[in-house]
């Protein structure tokens, strides 16, 4: 993103007065940007959300349906085959191989984001492509997770090597919860949409190495599974998403559950609210930064940082950094208001308690924010992986015979994108309502108190959903 953005910004910087601020592309990898959702469709979307919300309040079930545990195994043979040791080894090996290819192509390949395997693989195929995969098939990333695979392999070897066994890992501090994961996601998003050289292949490779180092350290201190389950950002992220899926692995079995019920079973450890706020806030800012509202704020911020003595390249980066963190904080403040409202309904729970009790219902909203914002990017830029896989370094190779393939920019039309976007947002809103309602029925003995507590959560959700639609109508306006 940023090289182009900066080049444009620098070129124009001299003539600022008469000119619109530089067009800031959300990702440097973006070639085709979406047209903004037209006003009438925005109005339709918002209207549908309101109708759905009120009808939901009126007709939703009076007894919890998602909270009770309902999981039944599929055929034992299939489950055992899919979770067998050879399959696990194979999946882990594929994950590790891909990690190595990212690092190798990022360091050794041409330093052009479009022509190198690393940026497209990390930002598009991995970060965005695994979202629909997790939604449908469950937590597949856990099986392919390269860090987990390396950690388990290492501890297996170490156990063999040292006769007395390894020392017990340190107990994972309860207060730490999912905070490391939230931090990891902030760092990733910073690299993706703020950092000046964030999509340069070598930056992607080095960041991957640094993150791998941190993860190995964490696993070494607290144990592989403890760190992966709570602290490793991508594991936690894709696991959250996979909780929507009806498929879940338990032990050596794979079973089905009600869709969304995995979210009801989420333990709201410390840091979970922060994690969700990062997810919603970062996508919000990515959308906002494409629109005229943000473009009108940037010059002021840049002037401010310039007056502090930063160079022109740094000021744009800092302005975007402020925007990212500011948006995350704004979204958090809004959610805190809703939680305070829920608390005012009664019951002894603290505000943090109320915020945590309903945080799982924000997961669908966070997912559809990402889905609506990136669907066309995934479908279009994702095609690049066909030729990048054949020529990961950009050296003109043709390993798989696909080097000559090109991107079909017409693969999805503007109208289809718009309806998908509104469809996603409405679907996420409905799922969130369902989850929050179900939770309220468990928390409050009397159904009418439960419904009353829901007015607040409903207001929060309508706010988030309308914000999502507004951002889509803002994006890429001139």
């Amino acid at each position, binding site marked *: 993103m940023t090289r182009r953005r900066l080049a444009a910004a620098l*070129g124009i910087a001299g003539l600022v007065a008469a000119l619109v601020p530089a067009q800031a592309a959300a990702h440097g990898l973006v070639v*085709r940007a979406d*047209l903004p959702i037209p*006003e*009438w469709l925005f109005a339709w979307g918002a*209207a*549908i959300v309101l109708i759905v919300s009120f009808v939901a*309040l009126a007709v939703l079930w009076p007894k919890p349906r998602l909270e009770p545990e309902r999981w039944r195994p599929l055929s034992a043979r299939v489950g055992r085959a899919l979770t067998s040791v050879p399959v696990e080894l194979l999946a882990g090996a594929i994950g590790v191989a891909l990690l190595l290819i990212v690092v190798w192509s990022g360091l050794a390949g041409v330093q052009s984001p479009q022509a190198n395997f690393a940026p497209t693989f990390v930002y598009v195929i991995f970060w965005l492509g695994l979202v629909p995969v997790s939604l449908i098939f469950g937590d597949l990333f856990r099986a392919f997770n390269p860090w987990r695979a390396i950690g388990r392999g290492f501890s297996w070897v170490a156990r063999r090597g040292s006769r007395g066994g390894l020392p017990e890992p340190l107990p994972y501090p309860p207060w730490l919860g999912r905070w490391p994961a939230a931090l990891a996601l902030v760092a990733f998003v910073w690299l993706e949409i703020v950092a000046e050289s964030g999509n340069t292949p070598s930056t992607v490779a080095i960041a991957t190495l640094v993150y791998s180092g941190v993860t190995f350290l964490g696993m070494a201190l607290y144990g592989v599974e403890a760190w992966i389950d709570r602290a490793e950002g991508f594991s936690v992220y894709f696991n959250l998403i996979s909780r929507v899926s009806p498929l879940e692995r338990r032990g050596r079995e794979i079973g089905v559950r009600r869709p969304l019920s995995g979210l009801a079973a989420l333990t709201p450890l410390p840091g979970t609210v922060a994690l969700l706020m990062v997810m919603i806030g970062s996508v919000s800012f990515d959308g906002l930064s494409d629109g005229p509202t943000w473009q009108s704020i940037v010059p002021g911020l840049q002037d401010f940082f310039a007056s502090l003595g930063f160079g022109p390249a740094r000021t744009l980066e800092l302005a975007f950094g402020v925007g990212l963190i500011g948006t995350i904080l704004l979204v958090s403040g809004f959610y805190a208001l809703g939680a305070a409202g829920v608390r005012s309904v009664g019951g002894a729970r603290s505000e943090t308690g109320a915020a945590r009790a309903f945080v799982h219902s924000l997961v669908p909203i966070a997912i559809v924010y990402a889905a609506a914002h990136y669907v066309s990017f995934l479908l279009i830029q994702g095609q690049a992986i066909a030729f990048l896989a054949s020529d990961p370094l950009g050296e003109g190779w043709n390993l798989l015979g696909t080097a000559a393939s090109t991107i079909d920019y017409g693969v999805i039309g*503007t*109208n289809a994108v718009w309806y998908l976007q509104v469809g996603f947002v409405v679907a996420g809103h409905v799922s969130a309502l369902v989850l929050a309602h179900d939770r309220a029925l468990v928390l409050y003995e009397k159904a009418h108190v439960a419904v009353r507590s829901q007015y607040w959560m409903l207001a929060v959700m309508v706010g988030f959903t309308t914000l999502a639609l507004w951002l889509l109508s803002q994006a890429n306006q001139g």
Partner: protein
Amino acid sequence: MQSNRSRVALAVVAVALAAVAFLVLRPADDEEGASAPSAAQGSSPAPDEEDSGSGGGGGEDGGVKRDKPDSVEIEVTNGAPVGGVADVEVAKGNEVLLEVSADTEDVVHVHGYDQFAGVAPDDPAKFKFIADLEGIYEIELEGSHTQIARLEVTP
């Protein structure tokens, strides 16, 4: 149960509210046909005049379709487009004639359509193509990585 009845009443009120909200927010005219989610889903452009809402900058595209190509001229001096990054708005299916003149040597790249043409101080880059891909695409000077326009192809 009486609570059920009041809930249904609540729902009715909500639907009414939402309908009013939609009527208020709805654009003034000519969009009803297009608002039905099933319409206009296909790839073919809608036959009616859908340009009225776009607040178009060009002027050429005000209702004229396919007969006359949209012609756009962009001038680059001192490494920046004169008048800022231009918005080039065309309706899908129209023919685009694009001429870029610059005071340096460079290559002009229309992204998405992947059209390239060299430009030199006395030799403008000329493009002629059909705008058949929807979306927003960058037009840039490839050598200096300067965006000079955005091509907006509306359905």
